[in-house]
């Protein structure tokens, strides 16, 4: 049974709100306090936008996705269940689902892939806080761990997570049995987990 969230009193100044944990802010949004949601937005929007661009391949579509996702999060905030994951997981999961829906609705011919390297050079976000710095380091770690996976494993993981394809679709695309695809996903995730847990194993 999770502990009840600490209720924060009437001090709604931006400074006070920014000191609260995500879960405490979500609890405040139950009382229709948009200022608390604003802090949540500021903390996670760059990660959400980055993920949406990665999946959609277009900034304009990604903006629509992020806008719809955050408005949906605001409307359904009472459904957040912290026993099922962090607020960040909840937000990025919603953004991913919306982005996948968006690219499924779009014709295949329109779809393009953004050149990550070029974008990084032009659009890299400033490191605003120590926490953000830690997140960026973690993100770099995961990218390096992905790079070290065997191609056949990283490919199925990327097709599934960022491409929104089911294991059946991936099996059909690669002309392989579904069982093989599931196995590669499982092995790939297990290796990623082990590598992330032991960063020293990651080659520079």
């Amino acid at each position, binding site marked *: 049974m999770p502990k009840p969230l600490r209720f924060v009193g009437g001090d709604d*100044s931006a*400074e006070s709100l*920014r000191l609260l944990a995500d879960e405490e802010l979500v609890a405040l949004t139950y009382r*229709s*306090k*948009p200022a608390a*949601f*604003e802090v949540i*937005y*500021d903390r996670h*929007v*760059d*990660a*959400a*936008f*980055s*993920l949406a*661009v*990665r999946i959609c391949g277009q900034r304009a579509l990604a*903006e629509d996705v*992020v806008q719809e996702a955050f*408005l949906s999060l*605001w*409307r359904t905030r009472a459904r957040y269940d912290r026993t099922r*994951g962090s607020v960040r*997981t909840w937000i*990025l*999961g919603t*953004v991913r*689902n919306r982005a996948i829906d968006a690219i499924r609705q779009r014709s295949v011919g329109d779809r393009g892939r953004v050149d*990550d390297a070029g*974008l*990084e050079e032009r*659009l*890299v*976000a400033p*490191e*605003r*806080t120590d926490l953000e710095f830690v997140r960026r380091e*973690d*993100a770099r770690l*995961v990218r390096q761990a*992905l790079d070290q996976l065997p191609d056949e494993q990283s490919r199925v993981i990327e097709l*599934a*997570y960022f491409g*929104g*394809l*089911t*294991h*059946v679709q*991936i099996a059909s695309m690669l002309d392989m049995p579904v*069982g093989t*695809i*599931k196995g590669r*996903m499982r092995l*790939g*995730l*297990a290796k*990623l*987990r082990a590598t992330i847990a032991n960063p020293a194993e990651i080659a520079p």
Partner: protein
Amino acid sequence: MNGASAPHIDPDGCPSKAAAYVLGALPQEELDEFERHMDSCVVCRDAVAGMQPVADALASSVTPLTSPADLRERVMSSVYGDARERTSSAHASAVRRWALAPLRWRSAVTVAAVAAAVTALLVIALTPATTSSRARVIRVEVTTTPRASAVLRVSGGHAELEVIGMPQSAPNRVYEVWIKRGGALLPTNALFTVTDRGSATVAVPGDVRGAMAVLVTSEPRGGSPAPTRTPVIVAPLS
């Protein structure tokens, strides 16, 4: 390998679908089936719990980008608007509930109190939006350090500046807020320092309607009648 009471749903055995599940790669029918299966299969539940953080990490592994400032304005404008509507309708339904309450319950309250409640409702409905509900939010670059950021919230003629990650003022110096009108840079009495975390929230004095920008400079303690340093924040209003 199957959980004791779980129906066998996968020819490859448990937990072969867990990875596809956390990657969002199960077709809808299999997804529904697998979620029901997990209710009674501890093997699959544990496998999902172990893999989920890795899938979550994938979401954060993408190339970091900065979201557009106007996106923030669109989202928060809708959120504040929705919150305002909910507040109004909550008051309206409270009055409706009261009006529909049994007569013996209502009789305890005077007609004057009813009138007061209705008046309050009308005031809520007719009062212009609060500062935050119609605020235009402008994200502003700060030149002191890449880690610093600022937003300016403007509502009508009122503006409030919030900074994060700003360096501490040098000894005997403070930050001073300026308003630019036409070609003139007008001093304000808003002098501020930042917390250990580099944060501060400052109300911009006076009416900013018609102003071109709000600026911040580092000045000697007590402020200056004219800026002595290059602005560290320039927040355009027009």
